[in-house]
């Protein structure tokens, strides 16, 4: 057993495309920037590249730290690094901040070259399809003709699916974790509550808040609190917090009484400080819109007809936002097309968030699958 190591100090890079990108909405981005990071070395055959797609609140900073003073490493540091399941001694790993993001890629916060002002509300909504098209441009710029794999959880898993559909010749493996072929009405409903809390915040100013130097912090806080509840399971909340109180007795006021309240408030505050509200509402829209089969389960099999990549599909038992049943819909459509697929249902208490945790069976599966990839 070789010791897992951390990746160390990393730094982001910039990809600038001067080729216009026609978005699904019909709008055209004349030029755009994608922030990205890479770890490990691209081999001579250029066949060891793995693209990691991020979910709602992620970005291109997958692993490592920007300086030794950084408090936290990248968001999937437990997976990516030397001798970790996605081993950077073997693989060339790529993370990209999606269009509409707020961590350096073109998005509402970036400057519109035409107006010399932040895009704000005018930045068009980019979809999963648009993201994958932009990824492809970046991957091509790195002279990679075929990715060894595309991996993602949740919204990231949808991008892995889209890669397999759109660029069948350019991806060997899709690893789809805690994902779904589209969102259920309940899921869209949660997203709409989150959006409404942001949009109705007086500081939102119809999305043009940068110039006013305000931030819809209240709305973003509430959106995150709601999201957080749905990413956890009832069981894990029960065992972590139960009915534990902040004080010895009830205070009979509206300050936080229960530990769960204090936890949610803390999470909301932390998130609202660092995340951009315009990005948040755009990411939830991308989730809502993605539906390669256009509503019918039967069609998904047809949509998968030209897929050439192999699949690993993973779900978590306690995940009720992207339940195992939804993953099985993906598996079913793959089976209908005789596509190589492995499917595992991981017993985990932590709900949707489980895909970011270091659950032993989960990571052992990913490690074995990646080992067989090369």
């Amino acid at each position, binding site marked *: 057993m070789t010791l897992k190591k951390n990746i160390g100090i990393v730094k982001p890079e910039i990809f600038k495309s001067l080729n216009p990108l026609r978005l699904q909405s019909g709008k055209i981005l004349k030029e755009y920037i994608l922030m990205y990071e890479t770890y490990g070395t691209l081999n001579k055959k250029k066949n060891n590249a793995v693209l990691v797609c991020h979910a709602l609140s992620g970005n291109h900073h997958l692993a490592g730290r920007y300086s030794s003073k950084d408090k936290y490493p990248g968001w999937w540091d437990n997976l990516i690094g030397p001798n970790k399941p996605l081993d950077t001694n073997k693989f060339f790993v790529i993370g990209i901040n999606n269009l509409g993001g707020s961590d350096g890629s073109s998005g509402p916060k970036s400057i519109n070259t035409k107006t010399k002002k932040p895009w704000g509300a005018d930045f068009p909504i980019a979809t999963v399809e648009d993201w994958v098209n932009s990824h492809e441009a970046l991957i091509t710029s790195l002279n990679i003709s075929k990715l060894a794999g595309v991996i993602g959880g949740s919204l990231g898993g949808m991008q892995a699916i889209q890669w397999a559909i759109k660029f069948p010749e350019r991806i060997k493996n899709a690893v789809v974790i805690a994902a779904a072929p589209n969102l259920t009405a309940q899921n869209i409903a949660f997203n709409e509550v989150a959006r409404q809390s942001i949009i109705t915040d007086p500081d939102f100013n119809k999305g043009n808040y940068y110039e006013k130097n305000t931030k819809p912090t209240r709305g973003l806080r509430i959106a995150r609190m709601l999201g957080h509840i749905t990413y956890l399971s009832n069981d894990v909340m029960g065992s972590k917090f139960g009915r534990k109180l902040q004080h010895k007795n009830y205070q009979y006021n509206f300050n936080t009484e229960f530990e769960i309240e204090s936890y949610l408030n803390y999470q909301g505050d932390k998130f609202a400080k660092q995340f951009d509200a315009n990005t948040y509402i755009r990411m939830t829209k991308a989730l809502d819109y993605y539906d390669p089969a256009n509503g019918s389960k039967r069609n998904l099999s047809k949509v998968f007809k030209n897929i050439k990549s192999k699949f690993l599909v993973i779900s978590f038992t306690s995940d009720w936002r992207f339940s195992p049943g939804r993953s099985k819909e993906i598996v079913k459509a793959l*089976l209908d097309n005789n596509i*190589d697929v492995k499917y595992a249902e991981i017993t985990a208490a932590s709900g949707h968030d489980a895909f970011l945790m270091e659950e032993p069976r989960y990571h052992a599966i990913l490690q074995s699958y990646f080992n067989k990839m090369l």
Partner: protein
Amino acid sequence: MKLNKNNYRYDFPIIANWVNYNSKVLDLGCGDGELLNYLKKERNITGYGIEKDPDNWLKSLKKGINVLQVDIEAGLPEFEDNAFDVVILSKTIQSMHNTEEILGEMLRVGKQVIVTFPNFGYWRDRIQSIQGVMPKSKELPYSWFNTPNVHLCTIKDFDGLCKSNKYKIIDRLVLTDNKSVSFFPNLFGALALYNLVNR
């Protein structure tokens, strides 16, 4: 509860003999993936295995088997009618709860079905029963308190089930220690192998 199929590989060649080259195969309860691996090598098959035990699941994955963790007790809704040339249930039927439904599902998704099981009518089992203890043998290695087996049956029993459901038996082989048994198979046979089609 894991079945260690490594001790029983002598049934693999017989199963392979019933499987056509380049068939599409589904193995229910594929364990560590050895049988599918064997059929890949000997018959150039493609297909999938279903396994619920996490350790065996991972062993199958490491062999490159398309292994799916789904509950076969709930039927096979992931598969279309006649999706497979052959569906195999090897030494697993005795641990299933909805035995009759699963056989029906197998014959729905497969054109041909291979079932193997330890024959509970084997004389060594019968003697142990007469002696007043639950039988234990090479084919039935468990104690009564830790056995995964809930639906043990004899060859006679299984013949009866096929008859009442109108499953057509195209081949049947009974083995004891790798040797074919034709003399009173329900008494002298330890392992039964059936090759079925839907009538």
